[in-house]
């Protein structure tokens, strides 16, 4: 399979596929960060996470349409507004869902999986009724189109670079919130010992609600970023949910750093294989490898050492 390419060709292929992998990595990281907070920190299996992401994508799409009609001069920068709106919309929906549904199920983690699956069916059908079954795509502002010619044979699309930059920024913000802000300390305290956290005066219910909202809000941003590189349909979220769960589990559920490392290795493996094999076989081999590794090392790449 390597025979037909010269060394420099291979280098260029690896670089460009590597970059394509980085875009996939960005989507994985944004999806998985939210999921890692919800699943890793709270123990809730949110099967509707993909639908929260799609909500962000639809919000972005609506914002782009609205800006084009109402304030065309804002168009080059509409993306930043859209992302904030996507965060707010998904986060608010997440908090509502936590209040109505999830808070009754904290003691039954497997049941959260089933209930949120029901929720995802409802959301999918809602999107289909409201936005139609057809996939929609947003129009990118001019400065995001085109690509940057790094060398003769290497081209890097600008929207991809933007998504990556965004991912890095969001990751830093999430780490800051969880590890340095006082609210993040409360979240981690509740995760480590709910009863004691309550005893020292932390309102655990409120922390739960905001944590779930934060996770869903990040999913909304992921959806917003997703519109820049692909089109959005009512069931697009489902395509990513299994991959994202594997990313989180593979990284070690309680470790945000592990999530990023596993998103990186999975996306790079997949996009590099994709060039040499068919897309479906690349995915099969990647997923099989992950499952095989998880069978040998069930705790994932980075596990916290805890007594159970």
């Amino acid at each position: 399979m390597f025979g037909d390419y010269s060394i420099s060709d291979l280098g260029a292929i690896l670089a460009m596929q590597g970059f394509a992998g980085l875009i996939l990595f960005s989507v994985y990281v944004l999806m998985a960060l939210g999921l890692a907070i919800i699943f890793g920190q709270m123990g809730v299996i949110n099967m509707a996470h993909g639908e929260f992401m799609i909500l962000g994508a639809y919000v972005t799409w609506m914002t782009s349409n609205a800006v084009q009609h109402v304030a065309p001069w804002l168009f080059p920068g509409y993306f930043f507004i859209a992302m904030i709106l996507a965060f707010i919309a998904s986060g608010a929906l997440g908090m509502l869902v936590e209040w109505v549904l999830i808070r009754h199920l904290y003691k039954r983690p497997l049941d959260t999986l089933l209930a949120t699956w029901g929720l995802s069916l409802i959301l999918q059908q809602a999107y289909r009724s409201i936005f139609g079954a057809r996939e929609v795509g947003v129009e990118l502002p001019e400065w995001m189109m085109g690509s940057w010619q790094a060398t003769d044979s290497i081209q890097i699309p600008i929207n991809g670079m933007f998504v990556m930059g965004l991912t890095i920024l969001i990751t830093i913000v999430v780490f800051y919130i969880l590890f340095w802000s006082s609210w993040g300390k409360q979240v981690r305290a509740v995760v480590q010992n709910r009863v004691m956290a309550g005893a020292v005066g932390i309102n655990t219910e409120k922390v739960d609600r905001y944590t779930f909202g934060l996770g869903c809000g990040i999913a909304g941003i992921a959806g917003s970023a997703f519109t820049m590189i692909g089109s959005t349909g009512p069931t697009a979220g489902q395509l990513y949910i299994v991959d994202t769960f594997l990313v989180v589990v593979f990284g070690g559920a309680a470790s945000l750093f592990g999530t990023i490392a596993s998103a990186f290795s999975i996306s790079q493996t997949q996009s590099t294989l994709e060039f040499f094999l068919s897309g479906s076989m690349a995915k099969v081999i990647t997923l099989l490898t992950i499952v095989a590794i998880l069978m040998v090392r069930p705790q994932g790449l980075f596990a916290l050492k805890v007594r159970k």
Partner: protein
Amino acid sequence: MINSRFFNRSELLGFLALAVLLFLILPLSLDIFRLNLVAKYLTYAFVGIGLVLCWGYGGILSLGQGVFFGLGGYCMAMYLKLEASSVANTKIQSTPGIPDFMDWNQLTSLPFFWKPFHSFPVTLLAILVVPAFFALIIGAAMFKRRVGGVYFAIITQAIAAILTILIVGQQGYTGGINGITDLRTLHGWDIRTDHAKFILYFVEVVLLFGCIVAAQFIRLTKLGRILVAMREQEDRVRFSGYSVANFKIFAFCAAAVFAAIGGAMFTLEVGFMSPSFVGIVPSIEMVIYTAVGGRMSIFGAVWGALLVNFAKTSLSESFPQLWLFGLGALFIAVVLAFPNGLSGIWADHIQPRIDRLLASRKSKSAAGLIADGAPAE
């Protein structure tokens, strides 16, 4: 509740009610098209019975039952397809004697893993052994390392995704997204006629009752009690000297075999098999049927499969928009309010009332009946 009898009174009633419904009422009252639909729903009841054992009793939630359903179904479909692609039937192909989709994908000879499926006994054996072996590998790898609960659910789900992508991607070997279609005869017997569908329905119901009895047997032996003990306090069972992993592997394999029988019957009833019955969505739907029927009740699983699918067909025929809202809401409601599903509602609310009614009529034996009519669990 340890019972020396095989079925206690309420279970015997449930068994008889189901038998009357499936053997008499439905075949006599429905036309062959509807009866065939019922047969299709009942194939999910096999999966449901397996899930009751493995999820309800063993506490192992598998989101990959579609894999085993699909393996059983594909084994059967491969045999039927080979029979349908005899040299005489496929003489217009560039390579006669191989299935049509292989010919379209420029394959010139039968792949090695198709060859055993020329033989009917080997096919029947494969339907039982292949899924069981597959479940054994997954189960041994996971349970020996004490992976359970949520992680097991996610990994089985990933396996369902992998198998679907593999089947869709390898079109030449598996028929791709369309699946294996145009199946005609089973051992020379045309399965497409109304008469054949009628007979297949009864074969399926007999098999279903066989599975119910087998599951009930597993439940009532010491094995079943260890499963329940494991679900409640895994460590204590381990400290008592039982190999928890082996019992879990057994429950998972048994569930896989039940699902595979359902899958094989599905292929026979519906006349094709495709990856859309293997993947994540069908696997979760199978869990939904079981949860709605009651994860702790073998009969509940059968009722759940029948009722949810019946609702699905009738609602999606008349209100295609509302169906998914309904299914989603039903599922949330079951999980939030009735974790034991329909059979839980029956045992907690309806059964005691019936007992009270009976008791007030026969005041003499009232005390005995109420004691006996306590919820089955």
